């Protein structure tokens, strides 16, 4: 297994001005993998890439490449290339010379460089632009040049720092597919950074969820979605209802005073846990048939489904359903055992997963309610 690892980070810690930015990071990446670092802005994604590229020497911990420690190897000697957050193309060179840059530096002959660069420009659909100046290109075109400029050097690892963040929606979708295609075609290990969970889930073999300089979870997109390790991950990846529960015994959890069957085991008897239930896994049934009872307090049409907020004993659930239910209706809820995911309590418990202050529509409704109450109060006075 171990010889398969192209990159390993061991106990990496980085701080700036006494502030810890990466906190004891451990990570192994297999050769040929598409790995995504996912996390909110400021969580340390760029810093991690800079450690891998060699621009930052970690305060402690080691970086291994192909099993060899590379802590002290300068960036220019690493078989790693980067696509920078804002591309960083050379303004004094045209498209062709930007792409040829790395090969020229490596001392390759002109006649060898030309076909390689042309092949790369072909790969990113920029062949027609070979002689254009950089500043005449659109964002998407610069993006492609940056990809070609990095890939032409046949790096072992390609680092991509939020390369799609500046592109508009449609172009971003196209580039996601294209990057995935290029990664498969070249077999190069991609380490991709994004703060967009949808992007992370749809592109990656492995997702690394980060928060506050710590890795929260490493896993395949389905693992991350179906088996989040704590409330932070559950909330960050998709929508989740996260409810306090108690594990009664293996395969049995109690929440909101009702016992539910589930597929989880291995918890201590009576252990308090966080229970994750995805909005699409909650079924709305007539009141008398439900295991939980609640009242619909809001409904939003989302195109192919309705998104509802259901108040169950004061806790607001998000429920997605294909049928409309009028606001104010009392409904029953049922949850299948395989829709329930149990997590150990963490420092994020209680911080996420309650939709009582959800979305601008809800905020507005709350505000209106408050205003109404205030009016009533002033009427009474």
């Amino acid at each position, binding site marked *: 297994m171990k010889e398969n690892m192209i990159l390993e980070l061991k106990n990496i810690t980085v701080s700036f001005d006494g502030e810890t930015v990466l906190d004891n990071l451990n990570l192994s990446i297999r050769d040929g993998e598409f790995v995504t670092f996912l996390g909110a802005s400021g969580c340390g994604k760029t810093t991690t890439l800079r450690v891998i*590229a060699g*621009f930052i020497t970690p305060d402690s911990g080691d970086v291994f490449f192909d099993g060899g420690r590379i802590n002290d190897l*300068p*960036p*220019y000697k690493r078989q*790693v*290339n*980067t696509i*920078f*957050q*804002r*591309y*960083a*193309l*050379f*303004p*004094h060179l045209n498209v062709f010379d930007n792409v040829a*840059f*790395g090969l*020229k*530096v*490596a001392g390759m002959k002109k006649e060898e460089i030309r076909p390689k660069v042309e092949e790369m420009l072909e790969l990113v*659909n920029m062949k027609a632009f070979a002689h254009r100046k*950089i*500043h005449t290109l*659109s*964002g*998407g*075109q*610069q*993006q492609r040049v940056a990809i070609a*400029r*990095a890939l032409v*050097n046949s790096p072992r690892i390609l680092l991509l720092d939020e390369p799609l963040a*500046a*592109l*508009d929606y*449609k*172009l971003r979708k*196209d580039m996601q597919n294209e990057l995935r295609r290029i990664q498969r075609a070249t077999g190069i290990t991609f380490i991709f950074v994004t703060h967009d969970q949808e992007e992370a889930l749809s592109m990656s073999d492995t997702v690394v969820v980060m928060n506050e300089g710590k890795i929260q979870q490493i896993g395949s997109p389905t693992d991350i979605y179906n088996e989040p390790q704590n409330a932070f991950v559950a909330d960050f990846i998709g929508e989740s209802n996260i409810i306090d529960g108690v594990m009664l015994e293996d395969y049995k959890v109690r929440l909101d005073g009702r016992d539910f069957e589930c597929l989880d085991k291995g918890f201590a008897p009576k252990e308090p846990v966080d229970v994750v239930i995805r909005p699409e896994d909650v079924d709305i049934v007539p009141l008398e048939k439900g295991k939980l009872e609640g009242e619909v307090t809001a409904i939003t049409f989302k195109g192919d489904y309705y998104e509802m907020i259901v108040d169950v004993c004061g806790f607001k659930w998000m429920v997605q359903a294909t049928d409309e239910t009028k606001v104010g209706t009392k409904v029953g809820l049922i949850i299948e055992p395989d829709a329930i995911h149990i997590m150990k309590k963490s420092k994020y418990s209680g911080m996420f997963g309650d939709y009582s202050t959800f979305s601008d529509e809800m905020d507005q409704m709350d505000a209106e309610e408050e205003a109404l109450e205030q009016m009533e109060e002033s009427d009474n006075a």
Partner: protein
Amino acid sequence: MPESVNKGPSSSAPAGEKIRKTAKPKKKKAGTFGTALANTPFVVWSAAFIIIPLLFVLYYSFFDPEKGFSIEYIKVFFTEPMYMKAFGLSALYSVIATLISLVIAYPFAYFLSKVSPASQRLQMVLIMLPMWMNMLLRTYSWNQILQDNGLINKLLGVFGISSVHFLGTPGAVILGMVYNYLPYMILPIYTAMSKIDRPLLEASEDLGCNGFQKLRRVIFPLSLSGVISGVIMVFVPSISTFYISQKMSLGKVTLIGDIIEQQIKLHYAEGGLNRGAAMSLVLMIIILIATFIMNRFSDEDEGVLM
């Protein structure tokens, strides 16, 4: 191509740049009258202090009160060996002074652009400080320092080295030029260097550049416009230098600037003014041509200070 134009940010320009670009056409529409009005002081100023004096130079180069129009004065510049020799010396000295300034200024600007911003500001002030003093005073001070019994020779005496004649040597003249004009070389190079985007330097390292390759392939090409500005800004005053040469060579080195000065000051009555004007004109044209050639070295769309 599916993408729309200019959606993403351009590689180096901050967002503000684009706003300015789109705002430009609006300004034009705002009325040429307003623009003209705003430019009036500049037009008046340049007429009074640039165009009119130039016309005088032109007039005196070709007309004298007795003979009327004549190209004698222009011709004399090229035919009189003393003038040609002075011009040749001026060209030689100014090229040497420019090269020495460049050799000092480039690494200086390079390291300056790498230190902390506070230190950069302090050092810029130190570089500018001598420029706040009159050039004549600066040169006179050097003259005093380099005297046979001046500060440096006294210092050398302490170490038992006998007095060295600095003054009167070509080296002293070059020193005077370099000292006076060095800031004009440092400033534009430093400005160009500090404008280089840091990510570009990291990108070059990422693509395999060691320190020297980074300098050669990224920093130098991107600071070239500053080098050309600096070269022009040192070369132009150097080639028309006059006072520095007199003070530093003790009158042994006569440059074309000195000759023009002598013509106008000492031989005013016997056609000196005309000869001085004609020589200035020729010198000016030569400088213009040299500047034009220099500018051709730089990127076409990157304007260079003349």
